């Protein structure tokens, strides 16, 4: 039931931000939760190698394809920026079932 409720919910920036901050906090194993506007690359919490994990995570979780000029590091620096990217690509119809 819970999964159905989540699937039925519209994508909002807040919901994506929240999911991404939780994901980043878990992956970086930090003791304090990562903030939505925290630059995870500038803070040294992750390396550039992790950037591709973020790309794959967003593509598989939100069913989007991140290609062309959207595939740049600046789109993955913070949970807030990533949430905007997901919404932008979903709204563009890039998401297969959006």
């Amino acid at each position: 039931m819970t999964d159905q409720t989540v699937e039925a919910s519209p994508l909002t920036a807040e919901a994506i931000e929240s999911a991404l901050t939780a994901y980043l906090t878990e992956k970086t194993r930090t003791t304090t939760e990562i903030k939505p506007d925290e630059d995870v690359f500038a803070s040294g919490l992750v390396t550039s190698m992790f950037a591709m994990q973020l790309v794959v995570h967003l593509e598989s979780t939100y069913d989007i394809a991140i290609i062309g000029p959207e595939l740049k590091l600046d789109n993955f620096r913070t949970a807030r920026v990533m949430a905007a990217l997901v919404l932008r690509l979903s709204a563009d119809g890039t998401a297969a079932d959006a």
Partner: protein
Amino acid sequence: MSTDPRDHRLAVVGGGVMGTNIAVLAIGHGVPVVLVDVSEEVLARAEETIAFKLRHAQLLGKLPAGRTAAKLVTSVSLVDAADATTVIEAVTEIPETKAKVLGEVSRLVRPGTLLISNTSCIPIDEMASATARPEELVGVHFMNPAYMISMVEVIRGPRTGDATMTAVTDLLETLGRNGLVVNDAPGFVINQVLHPLINSAARLVQDGVAPVEVVDGLLEGCLGHATGPLRTADLIGLDNLVDSLNVLYERTGDASCRPCDLLLDLVRAGKFGRKTGEGFYDYEKVAS
């Protein structure tokens, strides 16, 4: 040769970590690549890896703007390297294997084809003896990932010709790399310094002097190393590192190059570093 990517056709022999890295670098700079390996399975994996790494390179802004990515072709036959303007050998760091590949391919390509070994440690002149034209062989030690690190170590063997040095300079410019030229020696400059350092760092962990994170933390924090020696080892690949240390130890007699037990144990356990998901660090669990 020229610095126009359309004038270059690259053959890369070996579909492992460095072969795929070099292929990404070339394709991303508009130079078409024929990737040759003895295994169809390795080539299938390599194609996926190359597609992934091309995206990584683009993500990090490491590819030149306005240059269309070139085509990748894979093959299990060395004959398909015959039409290349440059052949880069990136097979296992075992002298006999490298000499065999270089010898065979040098007899397939036209005279004047640039022949490059991406060896970590084996003296260029040792391998030159196996080739049809020793003056056409030069060493280029690409770093890992090759598409992210613009500096490369160029090794001029005692028999490497002037025309070969001009050709390799043009190729590296086409690929956006800067080369520093050194003379031939086991391990050249980088690995005669780096590999004993990594081996010593591993031995300190083995002897219980400090854990992995502390050894790396000290060299990063106190000496300003961007990446500690043990994380660097994981990036190189511990299997390759042990092969290279053996090459160095056999040729220099330097005891600091004899692979320590901890390194050998990790390799025996199949923990080769990043490429297997675990080495000194466990990459399945952390964002790195």
